């Protein structure tokens, strides 16, 4: 669609014409707009903490309250096995990355519609919108992470060398969340009913991920199928590196990473393909 090239006098020349079919991701242009990306993240975070009465506490309340409810229902009443770890610690290590993903899923999907006034009035690489929303979730995540870490210490769970692998699993949540929100944010502009599906989807997805239960309940021969849910890989990874429970099996990890990358790449391509209609439709 739009190609920007640089002449010797560094006067950029832009050619504007109708695009057809699949278009390139324009990652270089995206990089040139990194400052805007930063400001969009900064705006979202700042406004979120300014507007809500609870401010930053919200980032803690969400996973901690879920943990309390999960512990009472699944831990005490249903007595689900938790790999020999206190159920509180067992569930919070899943709920913290889950909250990051759930934020990407819900906020990311609505990000284009929520920024309609920008999209209709000024040009910038549209990919910055869902990316900034998903990355903005990392601030909440960092706060929740500190609380979780304190809790683990309180339960006498001390970090091991395995914790060094944690950034990889955080990266995996981001990739998954971004992939999903690229798909859903673009679909949300085109189809008005997508937004009603998202809460339901988030709920189903949580049941399909080892948040309340342990993935060790899944029979070995079905592990690969279970691993097709990238969040299964993420949560297994979090528990493995923080609690030392379970093991990282390639049969879960490989499909998880594969699907996450697949979602990200196809999501970005699909997003770019339909992007030209955003300003007319959103």
């Amino acid at each position, binding site marked *: 669609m739009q190609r920007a090239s640089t002449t010797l006098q560094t006067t950029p020349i832009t050619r504007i014409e109708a695009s057809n079919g699949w278009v390139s991701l324009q990652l270089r242009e995206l990089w040139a707009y990194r400052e805007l990306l930063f400001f969009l993240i900064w705006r979202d975070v700042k406004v979120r903490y300014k507007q809500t009465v609870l401010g930053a506490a919200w980032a803690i309340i969400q996973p901690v309250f879920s943990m309390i409810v999960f512990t009472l229902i699944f831990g005490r009443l249903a007595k689900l096995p938790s790999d020999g770890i206190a159920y509180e610690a067992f569930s919070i290590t899943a709920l913290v990355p889950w909250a990051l993903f759930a934020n990407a899923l819900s906020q990311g999907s609505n990000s284009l519609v929520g920024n309609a006034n920008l999209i209709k009035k000024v040009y910038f690489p549209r990919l910055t919108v869902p990316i900034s929303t998903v990355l903005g979730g990392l601030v909440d995540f960092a706060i929740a992470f500190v609380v979780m870490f304190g809790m683990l210490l309180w339960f006498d769970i001390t970090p091991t060398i395995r914790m060094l692998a944690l950034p990889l699993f955080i990266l995996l949540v981001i990739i998954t969340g971004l992939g999903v929100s690229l798909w859903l944010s673009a679909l949300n502009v085109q189809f008005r009913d997508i937004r009603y599906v998202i809460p339901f989807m988030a709920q189903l997805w949580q049941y399909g991920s080892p948040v309340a239960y342990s993935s060790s309940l899944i029979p070995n021969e079905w592990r690969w199928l279970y691993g097709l849910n990238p969040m299964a890989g993420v949560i297994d990874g979090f528990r493995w590196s923080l609690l030392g429970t379970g093991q990282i099996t390639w049969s879960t990890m490989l499909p998880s990473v594969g699907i996450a990358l697949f979602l990200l790449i196809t999501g970005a391509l699909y997003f770019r393909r339909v992007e030209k209609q955003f300003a007319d*439709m959103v």
Partner: protein
Amino acid sequence: MSEIAIQVEHLSKQFRIGANSFQKTFRETVSDAMLAPARRLRSALRGQGTQTATKEFWALRDVSFDVNQGEVVGIIGHNGAGKSTLLKVLSRITEPTSGSAMIRGRVGTLLEVGTGFHPDLTGRENMYLNGAILGMSRAEINRKFDEIVAFAEVEQFIDTMVKHYSSGMYLRLAFAVAAHLEPEILIVDEVLAVGDAQFQKKCLGKMGEVAQNGRTVLFVSHNMAAIRSLCQRVIWLNKGTVLKDGPSASIVNEYLMETVTSSSSRVDLREAVRHYDYGKRFKINDLTFNHGEPILHGEALNVSFNYEAYADVYGVSFGYGFSSLEGTRLMTVDSDLNAPRYQIKRGQHGQLTSTIDTLNLQPGIYLLDVGVRSGDGSALDYLPGCAQVEILPGPSTPPSMSRLDYAGNVRLSGHWQWPETAQEDRD
């Protein structure tokens, strides 16, 4: 020297409107896709071609022109002529359907002031955010910070959330940021239609400065005086095509001559295009002059407004005015000059009537401006140039009175006391 900055070739943009519009639900799309073969089969059996309910509408059709570097080009045309679509295509907000455009240089777009302003952020924070959205770097804003704040005259409030700003302050800050954008090509849409007269003047001055610095400017406006003073060249769009392209003085004249006058003395404003949140809290639905009778020079003028309030509003005052076709205000009638203001509760609607004893504006064609302000000085509804009205000669209008330029716009007979030495000439 005069390198081409913008080269537009056969640019067209189509919109689909009507029953089968863009946005569908996912469910509709799926069911459409499943039913389409059956429908096609049915129409084939009936011997009809496939028919779509979609109405196609060309916002731009085969538009071509070149703009040289440093040229300041005004784009004029009636509502729906394709002006805004053209600007949106050239600033890459939306894609053309066919044709192409080549742009040499960085483009700054200003389609509205305050794009991306967030009410919960302070003036300072919004400056950086808005700057980033318009394509300014943080370093650039740091460098121009004091200049922007001074231009906007908001020094004391720079760390106040903008939701506590008056609408005037808000607009000043928003325009100030945009005015300090330094792209090689500036694309500006009707942003000067807002704010008070003094600030509009300041903005025009700034725009003129930009133009003199050798930057290329595309400028859409309904304000012909602004177009005339800023642009050397004008492109007149009509129904998506270029009707005229040439020196601004002559094209603006032709445009003003051609513009049809509404002869009706009732003006329907329900669907009129409004900027910002005008009309959201309080709206003028329509107004009628002289109970539907013509407006006559030298006679009383009666205006009745039908309004509707969507929120509780306080300190409300109404005003209307007549401007020349070039956009210069010639007279104003305000409800609060020597009279109280009123409060109106949400959900109420009513009719307000205003009368002046003698309308002294010369017979001719004028633009009507209408506005409603609330107690804090911000506009609740504001419709500059919302209609053209004709003032006809009245019974007391002397036959000699015509719209002569040297007579100004108001020509009065006055009371004169001649000395006795002078004799009345009864010829």
